[in-house]
């Protein structure tokens, strides 16, 4: 089977980007990605744009302003959206466009501009990604959904408040070595435990921040990829799955079933097992989300995620390094950009270009991107 390769990646500085608009952020990331593979925008056959929220973007169809600003015309552009998994949905769509044969080189850009809104506005906009009809009337928020999962996990498996904090401590430490990360400061377990309560039991430091940023990836057919670069990174395993919109209808609140389905599909396609993964980017929108990810991806048994981080197994020098770029937690979570930014890190790792945070000898990388607290899930596997 002919494969699809990533030939170039690019990313902006993540953070409060009061110096740039939505479209300008997208441009920065695309320029970086095109320079990475020595192509121009004229070489690109199509654009897939991942941008999550019209409300956050203060626009209807915000991808259209982005497409024009990138100079893609007269080539076509598409918008893909799957809540916080928007970026990975865009990558999967680009893969399918190339595999179908209608395009050879596809540019994916993921972008979000979030900090023009005050916190309570953003909390409301993000909260409405959940079931607006049936759950929003109770004043539920996104930290609220994950707090419900955290408490259920703690009750069922004895996961501790300190273990949740260890995820934040690890990812903040990793972000120190990532120049584009939103936060680059070491924190302690105590910092997490004593920070402002957001949604009990989750505090401020259990939550990913509200961040602006963009990331871009150039994908190409196998034939083109080999001509463009000596080190194409192959997207060799794809898995995607859904769960119910209302969390009330899901089988369990202690994990995300769609991750089990999506990851097993991706492992099968890539012909690997969880133990073969050298470096993983997982969707740590909240600390509990990373612990649940370990379990659902098969890095450890169900209920043992807290122990895995406590034992240092997911540290950069551990058995399975997770979120060595700081993750959503410290690098930041500009929603549409996140899934694409995960690919940027994995590609840098597999090419040996992750200066200061390189996992030595990494050959197989995984991205895990979760939308709407588990409704939309994409797991992708990349190989050198």
């Amino acid at each position: 089977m002919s494969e699809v390769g990533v030939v170039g990646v690019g990313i902006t500085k993540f953070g409060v980007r009061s110096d740039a608009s939505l479209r300008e952020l997208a441009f920065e990331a695309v320029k970086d990605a095109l320079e990475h593979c020595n192509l121009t925008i004229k070489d690109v056959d199509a654009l897939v744009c991942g941008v999550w929220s019209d409300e956050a973007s203060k626009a209807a169809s915000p991808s259209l302003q982005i497409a024009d600003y990138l100079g893609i015309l007269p080539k076509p552009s598409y918008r893909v959206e799957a809540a916080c998994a928007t970026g990975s949905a865009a990558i999967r769509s680009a893969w399918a466009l190339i595999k179908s044969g209608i395009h050879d080189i596809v540019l994916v850009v993921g972008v979000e501009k979030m900090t023009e809104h005050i916190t309570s506005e953003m909390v409301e906009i993000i909260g409405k990604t959940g079931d607006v009809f049936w759950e929003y009337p109770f004043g539920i928020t996104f930290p609220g959904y994950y707090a419900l999962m955290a408490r259920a996990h703690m009750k069922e498996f004895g996961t501790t408040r300190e273990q949740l904090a260890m995820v934040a401590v690890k990812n903040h430490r990793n972000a120190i070595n990532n120049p584009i990360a939103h936060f680059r400061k070491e924190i302690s377990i105590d910092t997490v435990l004593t920070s402002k309560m957001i949604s009990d039991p989750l505090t401020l430091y259990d939550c990913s921040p509200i961040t602006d940023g963009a990331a871009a990836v150039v994908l190409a057919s196998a034939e083109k990829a080999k001509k463009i670069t000596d080190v194409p990174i192959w997207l060799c395993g794809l898995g995607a799955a859904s769960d119910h919109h209302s969390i009330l209808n899901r089988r369990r609140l202690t994990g995300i079933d769609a991750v089990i389905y999506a990851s097993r599909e991706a492992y099968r396609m890539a012909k690997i097992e969880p133990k073969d993964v050298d470096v993983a980017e997982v969707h740590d929108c909240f600390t509990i989300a990373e612990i649940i990810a370990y379990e659902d991806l098969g890095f450890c048994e169900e209920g043992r995620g807290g122990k895995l981080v406590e034992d240092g197994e997911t540290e950069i020098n551990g058995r399975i390094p997770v979120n060595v770029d700081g993750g959503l937690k410290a690098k930041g979570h500009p929603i549409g950009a996140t899934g694409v930014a995960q690919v940027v890190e994995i590609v840098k790792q597999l090419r040996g270009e992750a200066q200061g945070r390189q996992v030595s000898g990494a050959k197989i990388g995984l991205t895990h991107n979760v939308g709407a607290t588990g409704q939309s899930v994409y797991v992708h596997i990349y190989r050198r």
Partner: protein
Amino acid sequence: MGIEEFTIYKDSKVDKFAEYLKDGKVMATRCKNCKNVFYPPRADCSSCYTSDVEWFELDRKGKLITFTVIHVAPKRYSTSTPLSSEFKPYAIGVVELKSGHRAMGWLAFEPSKIEVGMALLLSPKKLPDGKVTIFLEPV
């Protein structure tokens, strides 16, 4: 009036849900064809794709399986909540009913008394803002 008394939308095929709440009943729907049960209620069966559903009343007794206390609220709730004219952290819980179905509701009592596993009753209530909602009250 209809479902807008419960949620932020006006139009729905299950708008009787709010009316039933006002009568003190928490209602679910059941597909007459394949007997699938839906809570929150649905007008259409996602399994057999028929739209012949009937209302039935849920046994309101359940057990708390998880909860949270929200300290940072969405804009709509951030100066006051439906429970209070000033903003105070508010608790939300999920109960599992005897039937195995789960429901969400406000926990409008002292947060230190909330415990996973406690027996609770789904209690429809009218709020000061005129809406109807569901509280989870100790049995």
